[in-house]
């Protein structure tokens, strides 16, 4: 083998491996995580008589979790929390969203400043016992992660409130109250961020946003 043949052979092999290696493309597809200095307060706002801005605030609520314990906004005082809406028999969206909620759970498992609240939208079937089985299967516990049920209208009304800032498309595959959104609420009950819970890249950004809220001045 003379030098020219050796060079061509080596060049071909290198080219072949370069063509097969899609890491460059893959890297390009990964969403860049934006480290925000501060998270905006989302939703409608009014101006008070004294000129102060009144931000959209999640109303009082009262539900029952997987242990049969009552959960109200008072139980989450001083904490931020992540909300989603699901139902156990959901065949399509919920399993994906729950996997992403698990990522959030695992990322902040040891951080007492964050809780998770998953609301069923099928209270007829998802009673306390069913929610308990569901939580046990995921190996998660209250008060870190509440799976709550309650009066159907109460659940749907608070869904409307959370989603009033987060749903762009009422024709989303899961329907208006079942869009797969994760919503971040701060300790003052303001909506600070949301993500499509079926999109892992969006949830990666969402986790970074939670970090921003919980640390430094991100929550100001």
């Amino acid at each position: 083998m003379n030098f020219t043949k050796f060079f061509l052979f080596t060049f071909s092999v290198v080219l072949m491996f370069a063509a097969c290696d899609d890491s460059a493309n893959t890297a390009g597809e990964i969403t860049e995580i934006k480290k925000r200095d501060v998270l905006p307060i989302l939703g409608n706002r009014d101006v008070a008589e004294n000129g102060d801005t009144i931000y959209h605030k999640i109303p009082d609520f009262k539900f029952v979790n997987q242990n049969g314990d009552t959960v109200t906004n008072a139980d989450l005082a001083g904490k931020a929390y992540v909300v989603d809406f699901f139902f156990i028999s959901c065949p399509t969206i919920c399993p994906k969203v729950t996997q992403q909620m698990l990522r959030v759970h695992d990322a902040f498992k040891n951080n007492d400043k964050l809780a998770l609240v998953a609301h069923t939208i099928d209270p007829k079937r998802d009673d306390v016992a069913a929610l308990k089985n569901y939580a046990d299967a995921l190996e998660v516990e209250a008060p870190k992660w509440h799976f709550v049920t309650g009066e159907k209208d109460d659940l749907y009304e608070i869904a409307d409130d959370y989603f009033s800032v987060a749903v762009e498309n009422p024709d989303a595959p899961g329907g208006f109250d079942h869009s797969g959104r994760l919503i971040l609420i701060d300790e003052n009950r303001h909506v600070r961020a949301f993500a499509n819970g079926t999109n892992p890249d969006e949830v990666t950004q969402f986790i970074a946003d939670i970090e921003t809220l919980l640390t430094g001045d991100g929550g100001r």
Partner: protein
Amino acid sequence: MKNILYTLITLAVLAVIGCGEPSISEQFAKQEAEFAEVMKGHDDVMPKTGQLSKLSREMKNYVVNTPDMNDSIKARVNQTIVKMLDAEEAMFAWMADIKQLPELRKDKNHKEILDYLEEQEEVMEKVKKMTNESLAQGKEVWAGLATTVPTDTE
């Protein structure tokens, strides 16, 4: 010569038997395609189920907050709410009952699984019909109410 003939006949018979039954991977592919078709029907209807829930709540609130409502209108509104909630319940009941393929494969053969999925497509068609009809009626009734009393739901 006879031996060769017997061997060829045996091979031909085996080939015919073998061709009659799709392989396991072909059966699974067919089942998955049919299941996807059922779920597509579900995904098409589910957004409307969400609309039923929202509209029925708005109508319930309207009835509660309008004590002097004409009795016949009130009856029509309540009948429509029931119809919408029945359609919503039909969808949730279907989702609670539908069996996933791994579960079906435990105790059903290929044909039984395909029959089951065909039945589910028919059930979903009925749910779709209930949903579309009740939602159309709900919108019509709601539009009639909205012309009499202004609301912030539009």
